[in-house]
């Protein structure tokens, strides 16, 4: 019922979600979290590339949207408390 009410998720929505994710994860101040979130996002989208029933696709899409909200909030929190000296991997 809920999935019938949602518009069917097309390629452009998915790509726009991926682009928002990558823009957000670039803002993480912590080297490890930034690399992890970038890598995990790409791998998750790649893994779900061939999901076929539209209900599964829209479920994955809404899961992605809520994860994007988490990432947005946490990018702000991490930047508020960024350490003064960066990780040795970034120097």
């Amino acid at each position, binding site marked *: 019922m809920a999935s019938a009410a949602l518009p069917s998720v097309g390629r452009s929505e998915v790509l726009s979600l991926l682009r928002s994710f990558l823009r957000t994860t670039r803002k*993480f101040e912590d080297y490890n979290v930034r690399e992890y979130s970038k890598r*995990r996002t790409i791998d998750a989208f790649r893994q779900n590339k061939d999901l076929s029933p539209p209900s599964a696709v829209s479920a994955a899409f809404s899961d992605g949207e809520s994860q994007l909200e988490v990432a947005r909030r946490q990018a702000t*929190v*991490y930047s508020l408390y960024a350490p003064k000296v960066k990780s*040795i*991997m970034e120097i």
Partner: protein
Amino acid sequence: MASKLLSTALRRRSSPLLRSFSTAAAAVAHDSSEPSGISIKGVKIAGRPLYLDMQATSPVDPRVLDAMLPYYLSQFGNPHSRTHLYGWESDAAVELARSQVASLINASPKEIVFTSGATESNNISVKGVMHFYKEKKRHVITTQTEHKCVLDSCRHLQQEGFDVTYLPVNSDGIIDLDTFRSAIRPDTGLVSVMTVNNEIGVIQPMEEIGRICRERNIPFHTDAAQAVGKIPIDVEKMNVSLMSISAHKIYGPKGVGALYMRRRPRIRVEPQMSGGGQERGIRSGTVPTPLVVGMGAACEVAKKEMEYDEKRICKLQERLLSGIRARLDGVVVNGSEERRYAGNLNLSFAYVEGESLLMGLKEVAVSSGSACTSASLEPSYVLRALGVDEDMAHTSIRFGIGRFTTEEEVDRAVELTVRQVEKLREMSPLYEMVKEGIDIKNIQWSQH
């Protein structure tokens, strides 16, 4: 190219406004305003070290922090307050977290008790079970490679008059099942074997031990702090009666853990904390809602990410080990290479002194021995139980790889370790003798 011409043209103008954008001014500002790196305990490093000590603790996952923050901000109620919204929403959060922890280990939420960490869970299990059954059961079986809190609890029981058998381990760190079987007595009240060792990372044969305990009807406790969320754990398959879980080993907050207590057949313990009867009387005290919510979130994330993390960590471990082995000889992996958790790699470097190796590795956060015992100077008791020579035990380094470790970090760790080991070996007269073919163990040192 064009930008370089432009910037040199601008710099020639040298107006103070443009000066602020030139790199020369930036360099001057850097030296005066910002400390270049960190200087602490007499050590100077350019930046924060790369973290390869995941067995000591792990960083909090951003998803976990996101779940915890509301309970520090507006939803701060005590979950035991029954009369208002603050209490109800806190209680709902605690129960949700309980079900998240339970589903990770295939248990029922009613079997999970929240504690302050795996140390407290271990104490409740070992001391609590034996005190409850102290009339009939006077014997405990554990291993020599357990965590210090289990060994210390057993020592405490010994002082009270109980008997404890500390099972030896083979040189690969795994207990021998026949030795275990023959150690069982009619009055054995508890068997405690940790699932994944925190120092060497070996995985004990839990299902076989569980089967033996079920046959002889003995409660089986396991300290699964290093195992939960990393390898698949099923309390039904392992036949455990009690399991200790720690949140900060699975990217959760520090200060919270859980104890799984089987309901069928029911295991009873004598509580260590007296109070208002929270957590079914097993552990009184206000349940710390934000920490518990964090632990639940960490368990849920671990369940979703277990397969992905495991594949990645295996690849990283291979990269680390083959990177080091390609450039160094005399590298020994402590503990079984087959039955181990991939994220824990304990290596000994022959002909190198441990303290100096660690002092030279300040840009990599690793540990030698376990965090609990690195304050003392004696070599780790776990390595001694494996039968490792004193000199090799002193030079052991534990690399901990986790969810957030990157390939570049592994490569940098390999580079730094190899460089430091080569530097130390070059200075070592023992290594020179070994290269000339002299057998060190059979030297007759002359007295002066």
